[in-house]
């Protein structure tokens, strides 16, 4: 295939069109991605595990066969990265933690088995902050991810490998997980699209649990349409996840509808403290685009926004401290030997296997749940969570969607925030409220500030995923950024 070289920066829909018209094969496209990984991953460090060429070719040939047989769907032949906290049968899954080094799951996460069934190509596993705890990917036990937009810049986190790989042309789509912004914030910092669906629409079975009431799997891709197609493939009721909803949403349904007359609110609390001027001006310009498309945009107020960070950093670590109690060095992963008894052996393994941020969160969570503090911290946070949900519900009486920047800053420098955990937590100030209320949110590129990408976040009511995608798609088509990082 000389006249039609496989394109590693195309959207998944463009790849699919070439497969269907016979202009490209899945095999060539998959191998082009493998070659791209071999060329650029030493700069990005987006992958923790890359599958062998023969494993990739076997998947690609099966996908080409599906296409020939007329059994293809939107995901057939699309090269994926899977964040390494999502279980893959027979493929090492580490959550970027030393404590899981060498762990090989004996099963696939539901999202992975659904992608495989649809003929998607799994290239490998993506780097992340350890157990998805972080906003810069610097908490990976296996080395930080580098943002392809700047050698000294973080990609965001925790799905930093996922976002960097899509931006750098190493994968067409990546599956990430989002507990407090871990899909949307890195997508924003890397200039790609990141979609967190409504809590409960995508099964969490096989996702290594962090904050179970907040965690949600979703796609990072080059276009809004690719995100919608991926959501269609991975969503739906799963009897292995009791919180998965009995629903059959077509996430692409509203993509081609215009947004004329749509009511969009800008909560002013998201535009004050710490927002960079370049982010503010890119955001203001994106509002002008939405207005030019007929949307009625109005400022509004969500006063509880300021409390969301505290609610999150009580609830997420509390849930994490319980979820991470399973890592004891007995059933899987690393284990410190030579201790006199089981208790000492478990304490030594956990002390050695977890990194500093994971330890911090386990300790915060354990404290918040301990006798004497439960009411003041955990219960109080859950009550304020109710108030935050109600505040969003009230806002959605007036508005079809809310918009705000995805991140108050562009990609910051490596090492800039590692000394002060609370400064790092502030990176997620715009994304966290969405998880607290279980809402759908999407980040779509809205320009550059000093050469680094800015993201526009669109938030819709619970199960209003199609509306969020509709507005994001309308904006994307009109603004037509098509951001590509400088060649590595």
């Amino acid at each position, binding site marked *: 295939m000389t006249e039609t070289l496989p394109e590693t920066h195309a959207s998944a829909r463009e790849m699919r069109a070439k497969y269907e018209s016979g202009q490209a094969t899945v095999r060539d496209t998959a191998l082009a991605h493998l070659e791209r990984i071999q060329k650029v991953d030493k700069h990005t460090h987006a992958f923790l595990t890359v599958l062998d060429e023969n494993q990739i070719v076997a998947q690609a040939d099966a996908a080409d066969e599906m296409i020939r047989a007329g059994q293809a769907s939107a995901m057939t032949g699309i090269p994926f990265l899977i964040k390494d906290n999502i279980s893959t049968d027979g493929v090492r899954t580490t959550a970027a933690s030393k404590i899981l080094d060498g762990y090989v799951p004996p099963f696939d996460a539901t999202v992975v088995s659904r992608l495989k069934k649809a003929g998607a190509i799994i290239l490998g596993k993506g780097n992340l902050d350890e157990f998805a705890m972080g906003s810069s990917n610097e908490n990976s036990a296996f080395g930080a991810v580098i943002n392809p937009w700047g050698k000294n810049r973080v990609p965001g986190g925790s799905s930093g490998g996922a976002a960097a790989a899509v931006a750098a042309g190493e994968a067409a789509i990546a599956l990430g997980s989002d507990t407090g912004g871990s899909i949307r914030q890195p997508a924003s910092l890397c200039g790609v699209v990141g979609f967190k669906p409504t809590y409960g629409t995508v099964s969490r079975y096989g996702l290594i649990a962090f904050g179970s009431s907040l965690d949600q799997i979703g796609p990072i891709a080059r276009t809004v349409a690719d995100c919608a197609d991926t959501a269609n493939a991975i969503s739906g009721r799963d*009897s292995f996840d009791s919180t998965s909803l009995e629903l059959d949403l077509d996430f692409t349904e509203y993509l081609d509808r215009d947004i004329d007359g749509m009511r969009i609110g800008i909560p002013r609390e998201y535009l004050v403290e710490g927002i960079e001027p370049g982010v503010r001006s890119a955001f203001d310009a994106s509002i002008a685009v939405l207005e030019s498309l007929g949307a009625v945009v109005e400022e509004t107020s969500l006063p509880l926004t300021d409390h969301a960070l505290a609610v999150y950093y009580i609830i997420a670590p509390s849930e994490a401290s319980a979820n991470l*109690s399973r890592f004891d060095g*007995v059933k899987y992963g690393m284990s410190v030997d030579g201790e006199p008894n089981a208790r000492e052996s478990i304490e030594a393994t956990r002390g050695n296997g977890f990194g500093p941020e994971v330890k911090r969160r386990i300790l915060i969570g354990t404290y918040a749940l301990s006798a004497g503090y439960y009411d003041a911290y955990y*219960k*109080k946070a859950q*009550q304020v969570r109710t108030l935050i949900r109600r505040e969003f519900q009230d806002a959605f009486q007036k508005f079809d969607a809310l918009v705000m920047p995805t991140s108050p800053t562009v990609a910051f420098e490596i090492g800039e925030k590692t000394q002060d955990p609370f400064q790092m937590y502030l990176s997620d100030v715009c994304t966290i409220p969405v998880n607290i*209320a279980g809402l759908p949110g999407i980040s779509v590129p809205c320009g550059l500030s000093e050469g680094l990408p800015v993201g526009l976040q669109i938030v819709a009511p619970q199960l209003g995923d199609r509306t969020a995608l509709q507005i994001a798609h309308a904006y994307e088509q009109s603004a037509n950024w098509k951001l590509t990082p400088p060649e590595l």
Partner: protein
Amino acid sequence: MNSPLLTEDDVRHIARLAALRIDDAEVETMRSQLSDILAHFQTLAQLDTQGVPPTGHTTDAHSVMRDDEEMAALDREQTLANAPFIDGEFVRVRPVIE
């Protein structure tokens, strides 16, 4: 709320509850960082939450049961291969009772 400032003994106590071994240098770092983080949480005390029900998760689903169907369990050999120490078909652990 009680004073959020933690002592080093508090940190050691929490670490023990969490089955997490931390060394003396870590104890001091954690004491200072956790105290700082907990101080930021105090803002919640300003909010009146009298009679507000807590939100555990956002789907409002209750007591979801799966059909009681027979299905294949995980492969024993593949599963045991992950355990750091095994003895035949068993996972080996250090003594629990001394």
